[in-house]
């Protein structure tokens, strides 16, 4: 797996790490049961604080994306059953609306935005 952090990214480092892991589970690079690096090894490789990686892992654990057990390496959890459509839509609609507004002010048309989403869903591009 490939994890990167960018100091120019406005997101905090732990959110970047969590985002990278989520993305690699989505595109199939990481499969359920796959091992993840230990907190110490990942922090060492990225030259960041242990607590940052720990925070990212805790967030992923709380979301049910990875399994963290005492004395064992972190592993990718089995994918959850899809939640109710209305619940998912409720969670994502607000964030999507924000992104659509942001895209509009960056000069992207609705059609361009739709194409960008399609490209990303098909794994052709990277944000």
């Amino acid at each position, binding site marked *: *797996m*490939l*994890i*990167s*952090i*960018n*100091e*120019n990214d406005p997101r905090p480092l732990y959110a970047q790490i969590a985002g990278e892991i989520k993305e690699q589970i989505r595109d199939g690079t990481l499969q359920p049961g796959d*091992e993840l*690096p*230990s907190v*110490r*090894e*990942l922090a060492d*490789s*990225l*030259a*960041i604080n242990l607590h940052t990686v720990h925070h990212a892992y805790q967030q992923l654990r709380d979301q049910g994306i990875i399994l963290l057990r005492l004395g064992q*390496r972190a592993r990718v959890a089995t994918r959850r059953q899809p939640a109710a459509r209305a619940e998912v839509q409720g969670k994502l609609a607000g964030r999507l609306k924000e992104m659509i507004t942001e895209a509009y002010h960056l000069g992207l048309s609705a059609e361009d935005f739709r194409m960008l989403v399609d490209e990303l869903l098909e794994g052709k591009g*990277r944000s």
Partner: protein
Amino acid sequence: MRHFYHPLWTHFFGMVAVVLAGFMLWRAWPMLPARIPMQFDFSGQQIRMGSHWELLGILALMLFYLLGSIFLDELWARQEREKTFNWLALIDELLLGGLAGLLWGYIFAYMTKGFGQMTFHFPWLSILAMSGIAVIGAVILELVRPWNPFPHQMETEDVSAIRKEIAQRAKLRERWVHWEAQNPAWMSAVLIIVSVVMFASAVLSYKLEPIAAAIMAASAVLGVLFLAGGMRTTVTPEKVEVRVGLVGLRVFSQPLGNIAESKAHDFSPLREFGGYGIRWNGKTTAFYFRGSHGVLLRTTAGRQYLIGSDRPERLAAVISAAKGK
């Protein structure tokens, strides 16, 4: 398993030795007393009597050797890139022939002379005869054994996407790490079982042999800490690293600038390195815990390293992309 790449008939003489030992035991069983001499000193005097059921232990040991040999020879055959003479395939015939000879010598000696207090002469002749015949037979069978190539070619992988990603991240001056692991559950299980047995033996023998017990206990703990937990390979914009064990002991670290060449490589763990783990064959230092694929690295100083990988083409591409090639 669809079929054996090392045919089962190559174990014919080992199987005959087991059957022969079983037959001898079956014939002699009604005549064996309940208590028979089981251990002898160098002069041949018996020093321990035991139950006649203990003789079945020899038969069980023979079956264990036979099954172990079938497994190892199969593993060898699956790693062959061309027909080779597998000397390891003769070990089971040597051991099984020897044990059959020992059993035969024992039964013959006591059936003819009785089970009283008497000197037992180690049956070298029957051991040599039986193991000799079994080994000669095994050599012939190993020579005529056909070679069935195992389809072990590496799966080719499109690595253009990962190359592009690394290049993009380098351009954005991102800090990144590529990480992969080899951690077969069976290896950790074997290590833990062996370590527990060693530790228990150390505790039990502490009063009799304190120094040996301490060494054994320390080896057990170190074995678990440094070898259980598999190996992890990381590539960062600066270096390639390999760590092993629960504690993550760094066993290999090379700055990218020192790496002259990296390429996916197909190898034979048993034939080229004699097993798994951290290995050296006089030319290459290797780190792998499973499979027969890896990345061969050649340093600017002329040293050669092999890092085991389940996706060698991807790992090689990451290393070369990180170097900007």
